[in-house]
């Protein structure tokens, strides 16, 4: 048992932290808010040059083959800095192709994704479907020797700037996964406006013609593989949320140690101390159930229970921490020049992504086999 990052892992954290805090200035962030991508080309290049987009990808495809634990520490720092969510989307998209794509697709896409030259987006959810494969309206059909894809995907992270989409579609028997270049005729993109200042889109496929090689792996068992990959996404998002929650706790303690009212630092008031301690308690739990989940996935252990616990607890905890932080910051934390709102909106968004808190608790209940009859 070793419940903390090793010296090498701490180096990953501190380098990432130094880089992000140097890059992400307040002025730059406010400028990014007005761009369609949510970042600028220099920033993207700087991140690409550090190799972050290939950090968790296989070495034969230009990656560094970092473990999921190591990768999660990088993601934790992105969450701490409330870095553009495009970084998460690109890291997650690369992993998606590495987990779900064919060897040929990996050869074709991963090296450019690792270098940051190509951008990838995962397109699963629809207006009326999120977790039930039978409910998807997007369908793929055979057309001669190729395929035709029709349907509409929503909430596609970085959908407007992607070069390629990983799409789930019904194929008549089950679920197929496909890699669809954004340049395919029949593919159109409409940006959505989400409250967390990330960039999501609705992506439409109207009889988009694809070669048979667009299929990502065999259709059989594709849904199960996608479900397993959703666990990886949820665990990585937990890492992002842990980093964010830590930052929120830290900025709150700092402000409470400086701000004076009634002739005393706010942090000396017991009501304030009780609230800050409550934040610390929820946070400590979040950090360790999240790291446990990532560690188990990284080691290839069964992890559904641990991921469910991590996502449900960390989502709630991060949201609670940001709401308490708002109460303690008052007006100072309510203005756009203050970073707190970026965290509080991301926290609530995090609760909704890759399975909501209540959905994960439902999954956890399934794991516990409560309906299985008189066995105790």
């Amino acid at each position, binding site marked *: 048992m*070793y419940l903390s990052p090793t010296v090498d892992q701490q180096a990953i954290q501190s380098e990432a932290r130094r880089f992000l805090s140097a890059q992400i200035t307040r002025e730059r962030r406010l400028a990014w808010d007005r761009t369609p991508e949510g970042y600028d080309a220099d920033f993207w290049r700087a991140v690409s040059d550090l190799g972050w987009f290939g950090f968790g990808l296989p070495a034969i495809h230009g990656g560094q083959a970092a473990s999921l634990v190591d990768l999660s520490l990088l993601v934790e720092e992105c969450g701490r800095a409330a870095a553009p969510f495009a970084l998460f989307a690109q890291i997650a998209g690369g992993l998606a192709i590495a987990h779900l794509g064919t060897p040929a697709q990996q050869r074709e896409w991963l090296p450019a994704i690792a270098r940051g030259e190509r951008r990838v987006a995962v397109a699963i959810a629809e207006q009326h479907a999120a977790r039930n494969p039978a409910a998807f309206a997007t369908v793929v059909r055979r057309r001669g020797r190729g395929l035709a894809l029709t349907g509409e995907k929503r909430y596609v992270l970085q959908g407007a700037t992607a070069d390629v989409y990983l799409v789930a579609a019904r194929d008549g028997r089950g679920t197929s996964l496909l890699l669809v270049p954004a340049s395919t005729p029949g593919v159109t993109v409409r940006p959505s406006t989400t409250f967390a200042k990330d960039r999501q889109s609705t992506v439409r496929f109207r009889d988009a013609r694809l070669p048979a090689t667009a299929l990502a792996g065999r259709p059989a068992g594709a849904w199960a593989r996608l479900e397993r990959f959703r666990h990886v996404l949820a665990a990585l998002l937990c890492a992002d949320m842990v980093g964010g929650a830590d930052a929120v706790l830290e900025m709150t303690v700092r402000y409470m140690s400086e701000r004076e009212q009634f002739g005393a*630092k706010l942090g000396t008031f017991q009501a*304030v*101390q009780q609230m*800050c301690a409550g934040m*610390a308690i929820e946070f400590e739990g979040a950090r360790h*159930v999240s790291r*446990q989940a990532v560690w188990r996935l990284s080691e290839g252990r069964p992890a559904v229970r641990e991921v469910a616990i991590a996502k*449900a607890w960390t989502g709630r905890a991060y949201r609670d921490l940001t709401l308490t932080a708002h109460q303690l910051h008052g007006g100072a934390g309510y203005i756009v020049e203050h970073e707190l709102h970026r965290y509080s909106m991301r926290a609530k968004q995090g609760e909704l992504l890759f399975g909501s808190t209540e959905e994960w608790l439902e999954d956890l209940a399934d794991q516990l086999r*409560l309906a299985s009859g008189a066995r105790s």
Partner: protein
Amino acid sequence: MRYEYDAPQRQWRDEVRTFCRRYVTEGLRAEMRQAGNEGDGPLARAFHRTLFENGWWGVAWPKEFGGLGKNAVEQYIFVDEMQAAGAPAMNLSITSVAPTILRAGSEEQKQTWLPRILSGTIDFAVAYSEPGAGTDLAALSTRAELDGDEWVINGQKIWNTGAHTATHNWVAVRTEPEARKHQGVSMIIVPMDRPGITVQGIWTMSNIRTNLVFFEDVRVPRDHLVGERGMGFYYAMMALDFERIQLGSVGMLARLLEELKGFVRRTRCDGRRLGTVGWIRRAIADLEMRVEVGRQIGLLNAWLIDQGIVPTKEGSISKVYVTELNAHFASVGMEIMGLAGQLGPNDEGAPLHGRLQWLYTIAPMQRFGGGTNEIQRIIIAQRGLGLPRK
């Protein structure tokens, strides 16, 4: 990073588990339910004797004093398995008094007291609180004055649980009336057979007896003052830190949760199995999550101790979290049981032998006892997060 027991830790866990399977009998558990979990009955005493004979009385003690010298994570594993099995808790002599003598006592005091505690020939009650000094322990006014080679003790102690059965009392007294309040306290061992001691029972809502104890010119030898004069307050705080490992275990909740799952799997109400009812499924999943969080926090606390860190913040986090989880768990669990949730341990229809209504009644005491949770939160805020003091 590694979120799993190492091989020797797993081996130790299996060893404790095997021991529990053999010695924690249904009869013992039934006796404990009757005794309000105080572990006072004949079977509980026999169990403690077996622990002793197995060499497991002093799991955390150094080997030179006959202990196993186990580290904090191994202690956590031990407590967790014992609780999960429903074994009687280790008494305060082992978890609180002996470790303090080990760290603060003179060589002579260690030789005098430790072997007798280890052999079970003496046992301690702990006398800290007074009617006028609870959470503000340093305000205590029971005093001890040196008269020749003896301390003369006058005052009263409350919540002195076990004082009516223990052979000795571990008493916080004021020995330096001129010193500032935190620096005037000492710890004195008082044999309960000394003249001048009156023990009055107080019964609590959880059926556990505690006591009000009066000291009138009670005389004990000078060498019964343990460690340094005036350091008693700090020794008491140190002893509470040791207790945190024990309090931080969710072993009992993990066992109750398994029993609760069994209950919802086999119980029907209004034509439906409880395990198919939406809110009940969600509530159980929520408890599963909360117990796992508690396990991680408790393990973290123990693990940090083994890394040579004094986990002041994490110890307090663990105390607050687990005691509040106990209250929440009992409340939600009783709701899941519905009307049957209110049945007491002696009612044959009581699910889980009425353990949840019992937990519900002891949970308030856990939250305000051992340093109230509000004080713990102030410790977390000031010493953990570094918020300013007045």
